[in-house]
């Protein structure tokens, strides 16, 4: 049986790869150390498959079609943005397990969209580049939730999708060792008049709730509250919530946090573990 062996929450801020130097060196070093810690933990966990949950930023989907939840079941390549300082190329998927997650979701009422050939944006590419790429044996299943274009996915639905993914992993007959990433956030305002603002108080509140495994409190945050306190970019908490749904009852440890106005983002990292 496949096993979920770990989970991590992290930012996918494109400035981290595209223009790290615009931030103070100490913050850059601490952020990269957090990614390094995740990279090392993946090796310790002997993982072979990473599920990365992110959201598109109107880079790969457009006004003509915005899927609420999408899984890549075939070829994966990217990133599409040429300014990320990340080489564009193929990324190894795990199509069989991805298809199983899709089919299991269909059985459970999850109306997945799916991609047979997906070009990814920075939401998947940046975490992959900074925490996965160095280990060429890892395979990556990209999942996109609509956590960026209003009306965004409901948090409760993001959590339910995560729970369905977990049941799919648990019912997969292979011996894969799976790690899940929830990516994005925390507070940031993208393209608005407040761009560059970081609400550290909100970010720390979120990290405390994650540490406590208090999914009920996170699900109780209204979209209006998230928008007001964390900005339009903080809807990406839904990616975290989905990953927490994969983990189930959990405890967590904060790996790091940096408020980086130069990157227009509060960058938070945590490891999530199953609670006894």
């Amino acid at each position: 049986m496949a096993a979920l062996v770990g989970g991590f929450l992290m930012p996918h801020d494109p400035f981290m790869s595209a223009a790290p130097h615009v931030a103070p060196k100490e913050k850059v070093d601490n952020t990269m150390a957090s990614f390094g810690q995740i990279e090392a933990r993946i090796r310790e966990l002997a993982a072979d498959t990473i599920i990365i949950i992110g959201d598109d930023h109107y880079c790969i989907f457009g006004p003509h079609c915005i899927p609420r939840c999408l899984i890549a079941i075939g070829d994966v390549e990217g990133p599409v943005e040429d300014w990320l300082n990340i080489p564009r190329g193929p990324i190894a998927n795990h199509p069989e397990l991805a298809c199983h997650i899709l089919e299991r979701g269909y059985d459970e009422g999850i109306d997945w969209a799916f991609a047979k050939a997906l070009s990814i944006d920075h939401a998947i590419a940046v975490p992959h580049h900074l925490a996965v790429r160095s280990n060429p044996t890892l395979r990556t299943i990209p999942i996109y939730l609509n956590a960026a274009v209003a009306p965004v996915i409901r948090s409760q639905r993001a959590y339910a999708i995560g729970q369905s993914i977990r049941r799919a992993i648990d019912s997969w007959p292979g011996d894969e060792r799976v790690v899940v990433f929830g990516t994005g956030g925390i507070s940031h305002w993208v393209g608005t008049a407040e761009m560059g603002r970081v609400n550290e108080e909100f970010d720390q509140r979120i990290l405390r709730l994650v540490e406590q495994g208090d999914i009920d409190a996170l699900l109780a945050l209204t979209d209006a509250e998230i928008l007001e306190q964390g900005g339009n970019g903080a809807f990406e908490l839904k990616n975290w919530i989905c990953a927490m749904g994969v983990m189930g009852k959990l405890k967590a440890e904060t790996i790091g946090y940096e408020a980086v106005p130069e990157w227009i983002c509060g960058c938070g990292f945590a490891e999530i573990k199953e609670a006894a």
Partner: protein
Amino acid sequence: MSSYALEKAMWTVGTSPAEAEKFRQSPVAYVEQFNLDADEKVSLATLAVGDMAKRGASTLLLLMGFMAVNGPSGMGEYMRRMNQK
């Protein structure tokens, strides 16, 4: 739903270098291919991002389209226009 047409226009500019070049060559001609009213055409042609945001266009798209037309050095000008009263 003109805000959706504004989004379509900004997405087209933001995802295609050829379309961004067409916009740079003639913004007034460019906006004619979209289903916009007269005020919206002016807003789009002048990249009045603050005004387009007030009309309901996604700020993700406004930023992406503006930068595609103006290049990475355009961030300061984007913020000035976004904060324009």
